[in-house]
């Protein structure tokens, strides 16, 4: 569990993070989005007990980041865009070293390392020096290191940066696997698709401030004036527009394509697709219309992001 209120961090005259408040309950993933220099990494470093906030307060895994940063660091796992591995060490030796640093019981450590090597499919290279590892493999070792002490909070700062698409997908799959009933995860990313797929909540940072924060669906809905619905029919119905216009919640109904033997497509907008769409479908079906498909288009997270970072934050 992470709770932060009014976090602020200043480096000299530069205010890197300003008035950041957030809550990440156990078992959820928060994605921190923002352009370069928005304050994502500084926020993560404050929450991970690496940087003291200039003002504000935060508790991470039950420990205060200001008064007990060492305890915070002992209870969190951190993965950055750079895996930070020692090339001349083997994954087994590297994990053993960090297991000792985090105080994992010696009698449990080897079992834990074996479990993680197995989980991340690294058993075959456990005794191989990491110098020749691909970025994907290095990031797996970094993830294993971050999970070695079974932290209840994990920070992933651009974990898929620089990875090829396949390796990035593999890391994303692993992140989904990390989400358990008791673990809070903060994910910093530039990849909006990644954020949408993985995160329960998204916070968009701009110039150190959170300018939007909610579930991806809610953010998209808020950014959409109205959802655009497309209804494909097997054949054109002259009364189609009238049926749509008579249905509660339907806005701007129109025939999208010219009627043809292949069918017809109607479009309408609605502010409440969850209620309106079932009504439309019921009305069309009761009128004997054969529906091929109904698709709903709302604003993408990319639209939300572009809108949020383009808007001047409130003073």
């Amino acid at each position: 569990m992470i709770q932060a209120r009014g976090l602020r961090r200043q480096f000299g005259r530069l205010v890197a993070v300003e008035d950041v408040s957030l809550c990440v309950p156990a078992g959820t993933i928060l994605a921190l989005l923002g352009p370069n220099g928005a304050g994502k990494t500084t926020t993560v470093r404050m929450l991970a007990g690496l940087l003291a906030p200039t003002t504000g307060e935060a508790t991470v895994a039950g420990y205060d980041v200001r008064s007990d940063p060492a305890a915070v660091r002992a209870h969190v796992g951190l993965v950055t865009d750079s895996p930070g591995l020692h090339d001349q060490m083997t994954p087994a030796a590297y994990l053993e070293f960090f297991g000792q640093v985090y105080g994992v019981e010696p009698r449990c450590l080897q079992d834990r390392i074996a479990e993680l090597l197995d989980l991340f499919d690294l058993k075959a290279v456990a005794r191989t020096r990491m110098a020749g590892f691909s970025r994907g493999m290095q990031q797996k070792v970094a993830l294993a290191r971050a999970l070695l002490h079974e932290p209840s909070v994990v920070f992933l700062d651009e974990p898929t940066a620089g990875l090829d698409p396949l390796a990035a997908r593999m890391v994303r799959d692993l992140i989904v696997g990390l989400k358990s009933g008791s673990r809070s995860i903060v994910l910093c990313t530039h990849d909006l698709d990644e954020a949408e797929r993985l995160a329960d909540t998204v916070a968009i940072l701009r110039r150190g401030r959170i300018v939007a924060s909610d579930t991806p669906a809610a953010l998209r809905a808020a950014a959409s004036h109205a959802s655009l619905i497309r209804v494909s029919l097997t054949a054109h119905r002259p009364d189609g527009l009238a049926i749509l216009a008579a249905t509660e919640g339907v806005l701007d109904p129109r025939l999208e394509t010219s009627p043809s033997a292949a069918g017809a497509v109607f479009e309408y907008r609605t502010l409440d697709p969850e209620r309106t769409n079932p009504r439309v479908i019921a009305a069309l079906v009761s009128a004997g219309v054969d529906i091929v498909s109904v698709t709903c288009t709302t604003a993408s997270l990319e639209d939300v992001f572009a809108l949020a970072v383009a808007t001047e934050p409130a003073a």
Partner: protein
Amino acid sequence: MTALSARRPPGEARMSWLIARRAAIESLRDRLTSLMSLFFAVVLPLGLLVFVVQPAAARSAESAIGGMLAFYLLVVGLMPAISAVGIAAGQFAGEKERGTLTPLLASPASNLAIFGGKVLGAILPPLAYAVLGETVYLVGVAVLLGLARLQSIPVATGFAMLVMVPAVTAFAAIVASLISSRVRTFNAAQQLAGLVLMPVWGVLLTVAIKLPDWGTGALMGAITGLVLVDAALLVAAAATWRREEVLSQI
């Protein structure tokens, strides 16, 4: 896999030792550093014996040979110890460049444990090579000059020279680590550390030549003073070092 309550991290001394051991192993694995150190620990003492000490001993009065042999004991010990500067420079600035420092900074290790561990890790391998170099030198003296010449080394002076090697190595490693933790690149750390330490080495060797003339009390005083300077410098360096400063440079 479930998130469990966190473990208890080790205490300061154990944590420092863990960090030191890993740093030492890493530097021992560096082939270039190892080759250089082996050169200083084996080839240099033998060369010094054959080309400098042996001819000098042949020319010197018998009473002066013991002091000269003791002085070269310090020289032989300090040569491999010079690599402590390079290792220490790599501990912070080098790791910053390679991006390997962040995981350690993100761990529960305290500032003192990280700094102390890094310094110790920079000292241990050079000291191991220094011991090897001094052993090669002493065995060489016994073989090339005879056991009687070896026994002519004054005990107090010889002891002082032996103890001075770790004390001076520690000083060099602390200064280099301090500089390394405050600059961005390995090159900058190494050059700055060299610039600061060169005059110190010069003064030290001058003092070392004079030490036997000052008597046992002065010898012990000099050693105690150097150890105290090391301890004070280590505490001051660890206390003023901030992981935030290091992080801000990454």
